[in-house]
């Protein structure tokens, strides 16, 4: 008998196989095929959303006083792109009047959905959305200040928009300041965001108490969110912010995945969780502030779109960012379409319709899908 400890043959064989990377060619091919099918399902969801979006976009443009058909809409758009305009009036109705609203819905919806993905992954909280950090309260205060008190940092066309943008960045600045003083944990950020939100909301309420009825109504309309203000002048600005934000998010999608495993795991993998969280906060505030400044406060997109996309593509941010963007764009476009058609000719703001759609959707998610998507 020897005193040397005995070890299991099974364990030694398993480790040896692992060390020697003992996958057979057949195993490897079979796994890779299965993995490609897994990724294909995710891609299919994105393609399906784009296809639905194209159809709804065409139909959405047909809705209005002038009777323009579905196929005709695409023909007019094509003629416009090709520089071969056959009917100036119809071209003006489709491209000049109706398209900006629909395209604006797609871009704004996509931007808010991407911001929602970033916030949920960054704050490790399924309830987070672009407004969690108080962007909405800051923007609302800025707009109210311009409408009610006639005070704005910028003049001209940017009288309300510019104020909303600048003030929407203040809550983020406060959160970053608090995070630097304490720590940049998700809880600190959320609590600081709530505190700033209450402060801004209180001041906004005071301003509205002093306002005349017309100004109060204007503030109210701004707050519920509408796409009627989007036009070919401001769409490039919103599109640039949303596109840049989406690209940056895609590039750091792996880091977002890592962040979701917790700060210690992330740091051990070489990702500075606190720095990334602050960067994400700045990114979300810039993108959402740009969108909100032009559309007002459209809620639920940033909350619901990522959750629904997550059901189909999973939590891998590489796919989730694109899927949420496409689904969010489609959802806001549908909300706007419903708002224009449900009790036509009266138009209900997209923000109101989104709340009607988003609330029940969120309840459905909580009741039916929680176990599949939330940890």
């Amino acid at each position: 008998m020897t005193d040397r400890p005995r070890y299991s043959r099974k364990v030694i064989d398993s480790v040896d196989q692992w060390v020697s990377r003992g996958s057979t060619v057949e195993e490897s091919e079979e796994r890779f095929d299965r993995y490609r099918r897994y990724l294909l399902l995710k891609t299919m969801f994105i393609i399906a959303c784009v296809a639905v979006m194209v159809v709804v976009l065409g139909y959405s443009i047909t809705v209005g006083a002038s009777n323009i058909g579905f196929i005709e809409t695409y023909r007019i758009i094509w003629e416009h792109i090709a520089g071969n305009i056959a009917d100036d009036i119809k071209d003006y109705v489709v491209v000049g009047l109706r398209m900006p609203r629909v395209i604006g819905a797609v871009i704004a919806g996509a931007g808010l959905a991407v911001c929602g993905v970033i916030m949920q992954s960054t704050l490790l909280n399924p309830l987070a959305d672009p407004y969690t950090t108080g962007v909405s309260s800051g923007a609302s205060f800025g707009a109210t200040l311009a409408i009610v008190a006639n005070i704005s940092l910028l003049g001209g066309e940017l009288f309300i928009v510019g104020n909303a943008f600048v003030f929407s960045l203040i809550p983020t600045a406060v959160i970053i300041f608090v995070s630097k003083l304490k720590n940049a944990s998700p809880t600190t950020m959320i609590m600081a965001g709530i505190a700033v939100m209450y402060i801004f909301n209180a001041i906004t309420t005071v301003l509205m108490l002093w306002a005349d009825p017309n100004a109060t109504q204007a503030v109210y309309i701004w707050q519920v969110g509408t796409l009627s203000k989007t036009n070919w002048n401001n769409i490039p600005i919103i599109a640039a912010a949303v596109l840049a934000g989406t690209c940056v998010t895609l590039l750091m999608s792996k880091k977002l995945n890592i962040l979701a495993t917790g700060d210690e795991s992330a740091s051990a993998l070489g990702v500075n969780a606190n720095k990334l969280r602050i960067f994400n906060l700045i990114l979300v505030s810039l993108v959402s502030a740009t969108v909100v400044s032009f559309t007002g406060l459209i809620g639920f997109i940033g909350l619901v779109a990522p959750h629904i996309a997550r059901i189909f593509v999973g939590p891998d941010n590489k796919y989730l960012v694109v899927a949420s963007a496409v689904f969010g764009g489609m959802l806001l476009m549908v909300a706007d379409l419903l708002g224009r058609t449900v009790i036509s000719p009266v138009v209900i703001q997209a923000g109101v319709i989104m709340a009607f759609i988003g609330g029940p959707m969120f309840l459905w998610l909580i009741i039916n899908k929680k176990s599949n998507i939330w940890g």
Partner: protein
Amino acid sequence: MKMKIEIKDIQCGYAGSDLIIRNIDLTLEGPKLVCIIGPNGVGKSTLVKCINHLLVPRGGSITIDGTDIATLGRRELSRLISYVPASSQECFSMPVLDSVMIGLYGRQGWRTSRTDLDRVYETLRLLDLEDLAMRPSNALSAGQRQRVALARGLIQDSPILILDEPTANLDVMHQMYVTEMLKVITARKGVLVIMICHDLNIAAQFADEIVVMGRPGVVRTVGRPADVITPELIREVYGIDSRVITHNGAPHVILEPTFGDEGVHLD
């Protein structure tokens, strides 16, 4: 791979709180399986977080092969040390495959290659998780989740592996399997494995070296299991009586149900 960690006179604590680690000097050299044992709250996790620079020491130095870890970036350090925390959270339920693949961060391109996928499956197979590859993490037991976290640490292929209670939620078979596997990995790959462990028999059977933390923030002794695991030390550190026999060439602790007193019958 023969990594040497030298800890010199470090003091460490969490932000805004008192020191937890006080003046620890310790040298750990691979390839070896090192178990850190000691009662709750003595600073075992704090010590391993210091080694991994997740907590920055307030004094002293830690070097890896002569390089002060304070001079290394987070990314460089992650190539040297894989760290598996005691518990890991996942806000959104991720399939096991994706969760383990996260461990390849910094080592893989934008697209997942066949080699990456093979490595993930080989690691899953090693930890008896291959059949669960597509299962979402919230449909796993605590023990299965712990093995997923361990797989994520192993796949990083670092020369130093630090594990905070890797066997805490595992059944006895998997506790034995995982610790034995780590022991074999140290021998086969030359890795330095540092793990916090509460099971004295597991530590005694598989560790090459045991670090005993007795009082908060202080290393009581370091040595081979046969030298360290004694009834006197167990009584001093844990305040419980025990007998130590030799089994399978290693000390084996039989704990007595008394805490230093003479003991009485229940009725």
